[in-house]
């Protein structure tokens, strides 16, 4: 400020003045705040909100790949709900999501308890355990497709080589086995998310709680039940909700491993929507299929925000 001397040229004063104005202007938090969230909001507006509304509207039309179609009200929904394929898909989605998430929760907890212990090579083991989560699902799903191959696949061949079975195992042509197969891939891929979340949660449980429990005579099981589990409750809620979203909207695994087959017995909402709209060209109907994700999405968002506020995790 002392430099504001007599030798100050007019021009320089003018620019400084302008800078001061812009400085005061931009210095106000509110303006800068709005300015800096604008790019994000523009992006989310044009590429999430707008297509989202478009989807809701088009799901009420008879739009196809070639024609804009006309407004048909709830016809697509009525048609879908009364048809066997969509009913099956809804059931599949529920079974797939419920089984996958439950199994991931249990194995994830077990894995966290194992990986939380002190042993040589623990960091390496943790890193290895993350691999299924980080490599491209499309590529690992291809490896699973090959594992499930009935003639050359490793499970079928080992079962026959070991004399457990005479015939190849028809993993992907049996409706129950195919569902088991895709659930297994989803568990393999997603379980480390639970384990890592639980591991992080375990670090935040104060050690004196364990000491107190031990002083009260609790064994390892008691300490897990009375200290670890309650301490992990908020993180379990948040992780489960994330996983529900990712699991029920899954596409890649089913698209690659079973293509929804055999006889639609593994179709999920996303794969059926893809098949209806892209292969079948029935865009309105396909959007009606995928719009069934919306109510569940709303519930999860609501619960997620509730937990985040309540626990401040």
């Amino acid at each position, binding site marked *: 400020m002392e430099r504001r001397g007599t030798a100050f040229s007019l021009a320089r004063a003018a620019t400084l003045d302008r800078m001061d104005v812009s400085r005061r202007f*931009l*210095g106000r*938090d*509110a303006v*800068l*705040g709005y300015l*800096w969230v604008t*790019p*994000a*909001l523009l*992006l*989310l507006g*044009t*590429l999430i909100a707008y*297509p*989202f509304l*478009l*989807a809701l509207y088009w799901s009420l039309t008879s739009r196809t790949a070639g024609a804009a179609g006309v407004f048909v009200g709830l016809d697509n929904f009525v048609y879908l709900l009364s048809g066997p394929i969509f009913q099956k898909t809804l059931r599949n989605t529920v079974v797939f999501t419920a089984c996958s998430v439950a199994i991931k929760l249990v194995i994830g907890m*077990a894995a966290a308890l194992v990986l939380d212990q002190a042993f040589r090579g623990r960091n390496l083991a*943790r890193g290895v*355990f*993350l*691999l*299924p989560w*980080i*490599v*491209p*699902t*499309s590529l*690992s799903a291809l*490896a699973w497709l*090959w*594992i499930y*191959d009935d003639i*050359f696949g*490793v499970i079928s*061949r080992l079962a026959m080589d070991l004399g457990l079975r005479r015939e190849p195992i028809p993993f992907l042509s049996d409706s129950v086995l195919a569902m088991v197969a895709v659930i297994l891939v989803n568990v*393999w891929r997603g379980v*480390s998310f639970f384990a890592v*979340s639980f591991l*992080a949660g375990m670090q935040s449980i104060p050690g004196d709680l364990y000491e107190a429990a031990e002083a009260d005579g609790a064994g390892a099981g008691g300490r897990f039940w009375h200290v670890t589990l309650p301490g992990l409750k908020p993180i379990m809620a*948040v992780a489960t909700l*994330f996983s529900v*979203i990712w699991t029920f*909207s899954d596409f*890649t695994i089913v698209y*690659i491993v079973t293509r929804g087959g055999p006889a639609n017995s593994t179709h999920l*909402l*996303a794969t059926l*929507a*893809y098949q209806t*709209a892209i292969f079948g060209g029935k*865009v309105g109907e396909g959007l009606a299929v995928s*719009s069934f*994700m919306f109510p569940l999405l709303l519930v999860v*968002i609501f619960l*997620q*925000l509730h937990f*985040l506020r309540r626990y401040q*995790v």
Partner: protein
Amino acid sequence: MKRAVLLWIPLLLLMLFTLFPFWWMIATSLKPDAELYDVRQPPLWVKSATLEHYRELFTRLPFVTWVKNSLMVATAATLLSLVIGALAGYSLARLRFRGATTLGTIIFAAYLVPTTLLFLPLAYVVRWLGLYNTPFALIVTYPTFLVPFCSWYLMGYFKSIPRELEECAMTDGCTRSGAFVRIVLPLATPGILSAAIFAFTFSWNEFIYALTFVQAPAYKTVPVGVVGQLATGDVLFWGKLMAAAVLGSIPIALIYSTVSGHFAAGMTAGALKG
């Protein structure tokens, strides 16, 4: 004995379950076809290893093109999202303005919207923008999930930087944006780096947008190229497929081995830090 039951046996099972598909992938990619499709050979072992499948990926298939496309799309989408996400994250973390909390909620909700719910109408928007069948279709749409992620992740990070540092800089004559660039960003470098790595991975692995928005063979990314070119039709060339799966996974696995420590926070999108 107790340690064996509580640690070593479950650990062994866990590692077998995790690594088995990778072993099967690698073993398959190294077997010559004659051994691969002969049920009298032991399935789990490689008798006469060959790099033939890998060689074919490079000489007879556009694998290099797919890698280039993936690299370009992932890098551009990551940089774009980091800039937009850092700006939004900083204003939500630090600047006081009306509606900031609501905006934070909106961005978090946007992170939860599954790509499989949006891909159909988004394909239309992409066409309308004239980007269909170009790499820009992906560079522009990947930020729909990367920007919410980066904003939330970096918001948590910015909050952990002491407010006093910026205030000092501003009393010394720095503007708010000056303080952000000179003080906050350098301090947040580790957070920005891990956000970049996550964003890069999400882009590298993305499947449904790449499958739907880009049909031109010249612009396909690795996942779609491999699935579309090698895994369609009745006869699948498993050796080449698995070689491609190995090569498509290695870069990501290598990057992660450097940052696996930050992983927990990143996977839950900063939500657990908020």
